[in-house]
């Protein structure tokens, strides 16, 4: 038999054998048998050297063609078998896609932290940096340096919790974050734009609208030409950022010892747009914060020249903002830490 017809027969046999193989493992075993080192093709290749030199190129070409043809058959069959296997796998692996994935529980930020974070973000964007003060402070920083000397009637507006310090009523749980103003002004010179979020304390019994512990954010701006107009503009911008662009604000003259003029700030109700509803007590307006121009006596206590610098300060209740925004009816929910409450924010 000529080398040529031998090869043709080889390819024909291979074609038949490959077509009969039903799985990939058997196919690879067959591949090794038909094209591996001990295969007939390999043997034919080795025997080339025994042929007369004149016949070698032609025989070599035929062997090469046969090997390529067999390899192509293998490749095709491999493709068919893999496709069939995958099709089978897809059939077998069909799932109920509505079943849940393994539970990955993500925790929740407390709504007080969330509110402080949201408000802080707005104010930081407006150029304020964030200061932190201590929760236990002295009478000096909480009252006296804020133009509220002992015996001042404004002291009875806030019932104070004192610390057993051996120093009488000198060490206290701060009743307001306003003291941070004084600490900051003592350590920085103007211009100064800062806010101070933090915990404050009052000697109050816990009820739906009072808590002995709550949070405030104090804001302070000191610069060379700040006016009540800047304060009003700042608060309007800030309140619109938080409660929506349609909010109007209203300033009512009020009284805080450490600001003068002092104002109580209300915004048009965000639920009824000022027409009156339960949330605003049918007034159309909701009181949201207190503010004012820094009293010259406060500047005096930190050594700022009140002829050269003017400033404004504002203070807001975080719980109040959160309760308004999310419609939380009772402040106690904020400190009860019921998971059904926590997981809502």
């Amino acid at each position, binding site marked *: 038999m000529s080398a040529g017809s031998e090869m043709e027969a080889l390819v024909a046999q291979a074609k038949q054998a490959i077509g009969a193989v039903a799985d990939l493992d058997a196919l690879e075993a067959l591949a090794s048998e038909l094209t591996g080192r001990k295969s007939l093709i390999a043997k034919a290749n080795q025997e080339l050297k025994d042929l007369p030199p004149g016949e070698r190129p032609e025989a070599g070409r035929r062997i090469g063609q046969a090997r390529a043809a067999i390899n192509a058959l293998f490749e095709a069959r491999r493709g068919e078998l893999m496709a069939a296997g995958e099709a089978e796998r897809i059939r077998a692996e069909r799932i109920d896609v509505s079943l849940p994935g393994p539970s990955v529980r993500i925790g929740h930020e407390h709504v007080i932290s969330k509110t402080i974070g949201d408000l802080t973000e707005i104010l930081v964007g407006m150029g304020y940096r964030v200061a*932190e003060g201590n929760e236990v402070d002295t009478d000096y920083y909480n009252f006296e340096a804020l133009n509220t000397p002992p015996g001042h009637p404004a002291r009875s507006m806030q019932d104070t919790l004192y610390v057993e310090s051996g120093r009488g009523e000198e060490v206290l749980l701060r009743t307001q974050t306003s003291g941070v103003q004084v600490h900051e002004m003592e350590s920085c010179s103007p211009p100064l734009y800062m806010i101070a979020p933090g915990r404050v304390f009052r000697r109050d019994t816990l009820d739906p609208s009072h808590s002995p512990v709550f949070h405030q954010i104090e804001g302070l701006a000191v610069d060379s030409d700040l006016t009540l107009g800047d304060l009003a503009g700042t608060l309007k911008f800030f309140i619109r950022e938080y409660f929506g662009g349609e909010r109007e604000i209203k300033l009512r003259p009020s009284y805080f010892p450490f600001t003068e003029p002092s104002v109580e700030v209300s915004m048009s109700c965000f639920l009824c747009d000022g027409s009156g509803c339960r949330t605003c007590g049918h007034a159309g307006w909701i009181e949201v914060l207190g503010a004012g121009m820094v009293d*010259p006596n406060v500047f005096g206590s930190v050594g700022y020249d009140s002829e050269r610098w003017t400033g404004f300060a504002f203070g807001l209740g975080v719980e109040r903002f959160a309760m308004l925004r999310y419609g939380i009816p009772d402040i106690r929910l904020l400190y009860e*830490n019921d998971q059904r409450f926590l997981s809502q924010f």
Partner: protein
Amino acid sequence: MRLSLNWLTDYVALEASASEIAEGLDAAGFEVESVRRLDDGIEGVVVGRVEAVSDHPDADKLRVCTVSYGSASEANVVCGAWNFDEGAKVAFAPIGAELPGGFRIGRRRIRGIASEGMICSEEELGLADSSDGILVLPDEAGYPLGMPITLALGLDDTVIDFDITPNRPDAMSVIGLAREASAVFGSELAIPSIELNESGANITDFVKVENESPERCPRYTARTIDGIEIGPSPEWLAARLTASGLRPINNVVDVTNYVLIECGHPLHAFDRQSLAEGLIRVRMAGHDESVETLDKVERKLTPEDLVIADAERPVAIAGIMGGAGSEITAQTKSIVLESAYFEPTGILATSKRLALRSESSARFERGTDPEGVLWASARAASLIQELAGGVVARGVIDEYPVPFERQRICLRPSRTNKILGTRIAPDEQVRLLKAIEIEVTSHSDDEIRTVAPSFRPDLTREIDLIEEVGRLHGYSNIETRLPSSSSHTGGLTPRQRSRRIQSQVLRGAGLDEIKTFSFVGPEDLLNGAGKVTRVANPLRAEESILRPSLLPGLISAARFNLAHRRGEVRFFEIGRVFGALSESGMPNEVEHLAALIAGDPVDASDSDTLGYFAIKGVLEALLNAIGISDARYEPTERAGLHSGRTAAVMVDESPIGVVGELHPSVVRDKGLGARASVFELNQNEVLGRIPAESSFQPFSRYPLALVDLAFVVHEDVAAGDLEAAIRHACGDALESIRLFDVYRGEQVAAECKSLAYALGFAAEDHTLSDDELAALRERAIDGARQECGAELRGLQ
């Protein structure tokens, strides 16, 4: 301060409606709490007379009354009140009448007897917050039967309730608010003139005043009135007091209250016969002195309290409340009328100490008008003369050693505009100041010289006048703008940013953030009452200690949740905790971060989800996220924690916190389910150790060669130490090391364990050769053997 509009408009003519008046005064700084028609909701209630009273046959506490209420109308009603008899004039609501709150009177049967209406109390008419019994109209008042009760009681009025700020004692009066209204609405203020007939003998014949404490009582005046007839007040006076929230008592007391509300100056009337030796002595209380006040409470006094005494004993706590012994009674014929100015802080201190507040103390402690004393006294004397008869003594005793000096204040109009951001002309500023009786002595464009009125103790500085100009100009007229300075940028400090990352990581690990109070009670402390800082005046024992740790709060929150739903809780809190007092008397205040996992595992077979390693995994993730990768864990013991499963978290040889399981007894006592584990970090240590922003570290681009090694070590050897030994031995070539198996059992010796690690080796600049890899492997094995006595497993 409840303001009757009928009363207000006696002093200032106003076209505006009640709500416009309320709005105008609110915008001027007098916060309106409510506006209410007094007859709101009262419909068809009339004056009636109780003609007959009989017992209810079937109820001991009820009576049956026959009430006539005009033009032959009569009704039988069942009534539960007992403060009246036959002949009493009452407020009667016949069938069909309506009471506040939309309550309509219908025909009812009460214990078998038909009741055809209702005899009303002040509470039911919305005139008082509470009532004992029904409203009985004074006999003398000749109300015709059937007259609408709203007319009889002067309820054709509107009351505005104000929350007056403490700097404005002058506005706690009708005249004070009338003055503001006149400025707001541009209407003239008309203060009543006084006609006083001093027809009696000289005042010094009746009473003597000795003022021993002129610092606490800078001015004391007295008048006397003799031969008065005590009786009920006329209806107009009773109506105004009721509208103002005061209960009518008798003509003399009512007049002093009327003048108090009218001008804001508190007065007091003593029964002159009750004063020993006819003497009034203003002095400090002695040790162990006490006085029974009008509310029938015996008050213990201290030498810090100012009293009004007679020759023998205190007869009033000055400026706060009169004494029962010198009270005006039905028998009183002669009175001493006190009008004084008391120093505010002394009144505040005594009123606070005694927890005794009155209309009087509320005004004195804020500062009354020292120059208004005589007007108030004369006004009251003339009204008493008019209503109770009697003869007013000639003259007035006026102990006033140092006359009050009104404050001179200079205002620069330019300064007003600089503070307010306005362009209010100097002349306009002058006009506004004058409108509230600030005297302007001279003015130019640069300077307005003023003298503050004596009733405005809050006006002492230029800024005080600026505020007056501003609020009368109207804050709604101020143009708003944003600060123009661009020299500042806002931002968070690295510490604040790291805290946010901490919160995000913990939430990502499935923990909810909680907020708990900063106080704990003694039983909440895990280590008993150690060194803590206490609250000096707590309201409750549970709030008496400043929390020394966040764990009690986390435990309480977990307990609260697990009490009503089984399962797991995973909480964290970031907040301040307080150590013991430092030498300065301030507690050591530090921010902590703590987390807790507790409850019953969802998969009951797998309590590891709640144990030490569960919480430690969270802690490790947390520390890695903020760049702390070299924490070590050393066994430690801590009160309340499981001594075999607790570690100190160490960074650079310093403890930064603790991690562990709660002691089984704590878990049991606090109802925390099967198991609970916690960690608590000192944020000063943690946030202080966060590496500054790191720069890029080159890494090997060559294949990582993995080598698995299992070591057998004694139980006492900590995995952390073995790992450190391997790291140390291999140096930089060790790119990663991962513990993948811990085994104890038959295949290793007793009291030993097998720890299997996957070591990843790489070089920065080439692929490691087999020889190099073999050498590194030997180094790891040698290091583990030398430092920890570890043997390669399988080589034993």
